């Protein structure tokens, strides 16, 4: 395993940031630590990097115990949410920093930096200062800087959190492609489930300092083990004791067995799909998601009465 996290615990004062967390990260994988704020995901990432010391447990990187090792000797690349650009250095010097510290020959540094600047598409900006770059460009620079030292693992702390939605979507896709090219084991922290699902091949969902579930994006979506996983990954309806996804609600014009009567409150057109907001006879509110075609077939409109049947309900103990 590229990274093994074993029974790690970390508290800040009386706040338990991590409670007995264990996680395995495979070589070459792209893992997302997903969770709401305060769930401990950033702390876990910082513990892997050595920027925080765990109170208990161990961190093994590439088979070597790294628990007490200083960050500079761990062979990790770290990318911060707010870029942590070296403001007094040009883009080129920023990227070269790790190699300069290692006192590599000038020619080698120069060649490697050129290569990386090309990889992150920043060659034209090599002589600029970070203050003259956009947020997206600064983050690409930070990535190139982290990759320059050929880290064993690349750690990204909410790397796109400070960027606007469009740049974020671009960078997400770009990160995915970069990972296919470079293939360095990567762990990134995010609070955005869509980002985790889109980019990662393994997602560890965290809540209150613990890992709730680890698995592929599809696994987490289709086989959630807890209520929290179900409700965090994708929208849900709560019906009595059970949970159901909006697209797993069948809308029927005629009553059938197991179907509840409901009235349409509102129809929201989202493009390809349509969200139908319903209220049941007992006052329960439901959201169903259907295709536009299906919506036209049923000739739905607000105020209409129809019958709702849950297709795949889940009950968590």
């Amino acid at each position, binding site marked *: 395993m590229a990274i093994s996290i074993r029974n790690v615990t970390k508290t800040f004062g009386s706040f338990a940031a991590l409670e007995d967390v264990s996680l395995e990260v495979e070589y070459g994988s792209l893992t997302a630590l997903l969770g709401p704020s305060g769930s401990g995901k950033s702390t876990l990432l910082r513990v892997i*990097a*050595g*920027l925080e010391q765990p109170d208990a447990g161990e961190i093994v990187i590439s088979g070597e115990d790294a628990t007490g090792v*200083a*960050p*500079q*000797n*761990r062979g*990790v*690349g*770290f990318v*911060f949410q*707010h870029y*942590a*650009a*070296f*403001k*007094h250095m040009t883009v080129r010097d920023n990227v070269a*920093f*790790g190699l300069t*510290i*290692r006192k590599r020959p000038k020619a080698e540094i120069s060649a490697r930096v050129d290569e990386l600047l090309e990889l992150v598409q920043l060659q034209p900006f090599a002589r600029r*200062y970070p*203050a003259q770059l956009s947020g997206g460009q600064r983050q690409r620079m*930070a990535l190139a*800087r*982290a990759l*320059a*030292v050929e880290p064993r693992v690349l750690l990204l702390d909410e790397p796109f959190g400070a960027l606007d939605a469009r740049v974020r979507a671009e960078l997400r896709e770009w990160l995915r492609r970069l990972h296919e090219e470079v293939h360095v084991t990567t762990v990134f922290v995010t609070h955005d489930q869509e980002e985790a699902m889109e980019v990662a091949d393994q997602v560890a969902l965290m809540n209150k300092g613990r890992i709730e579930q680890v698995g592929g994006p599809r696994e987490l979506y289709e086989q959630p083990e807890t209520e929290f996983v179900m409700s965090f990954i994708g929208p849900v309806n709560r019906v009595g004791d059970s949970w159901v996804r909006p697209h797993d609600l069948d809308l029927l014009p005629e009553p059938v067995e197991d179907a509840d009567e409901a009235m349409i409150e509102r129809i929201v057109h989202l493009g390809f799909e349509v969200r139908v907001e319903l209220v049941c006879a007992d006052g329960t509110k439901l959201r169903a998601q259907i295709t536009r075609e299906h919506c036209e077939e049923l000739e739905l409109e607000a105020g209409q009465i129809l019958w709702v049947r849950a297709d795949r309900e889940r009950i968590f103990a």
Partner: protein
Amino acid sequence: MGRYGLRFVALGYLAALVAFPVALVFWRAFEAGLGEAWASVTTPGALHALWLSVLIACIAVPLNTIFGVLCALAIVRRRFRGHGLVNTVVDLPLALSPVVVGLALILVYGRNGWLGDTLADLGVRVIFALPGMVLATVFISLPFVVREVVPVLREIGDEQEQAASTLGASGWQTFWRITLPAIRWGIAYGVVLTTARTLGEFGAVSVVSGHLAGRTNTLTLHVEERFQSFDPVGTYSASVLLALLAVATLLAMNLFRPKEEEE
């Protein structure tokens, strides 16, 4: 009209309080001619005082710069017991009257002081000699670098330093390559303020110097000594020299002002 009124008040206030008295000092210095003024600042006593002032500044300013940066790093980057105490004690020299500082030093290092016997045995003379004057000056000008660097350190945060460490930089390398360049303007301001304070210091140095003309007179003490000796040209020409040193430090401060590229 109101605009001009405000401007007039501000300028008038500055003129009455600062410009006019200083101008008078210059006028009195050169009243008897340039040659006379030149002669009185090139007397052995005046030259020695100038040299002593510069010497003390050359010792006190680097000491306070190094200490100030370390102290600021400790205050901002480390959490330790007595943190608040350090933060408060650093400001003490600003609050204490310089005379009290001088007297305190005599209590410790004077002949009947706490360390007096030890120092006498070692044959080291602190009070009424250069070491005491340096101590007094260091004490008085201690807070300036700390106070300039602390907010800069707070503002830049520690992410750049953490990034450097994950990239393989040791603590020392991180300090030289990342932290120091980031706080250089803060240090520069602090050094300028320390220098100005050091050159202008009078009270504490006066207490510990013993006023030995030609031996322990700094430029400020020389001004006072000339004044007591009813030597107006000597007094005011030495004052002009002090003022010129102050102007030079202010110019240096303007040179150090951050350039546009620094956001």
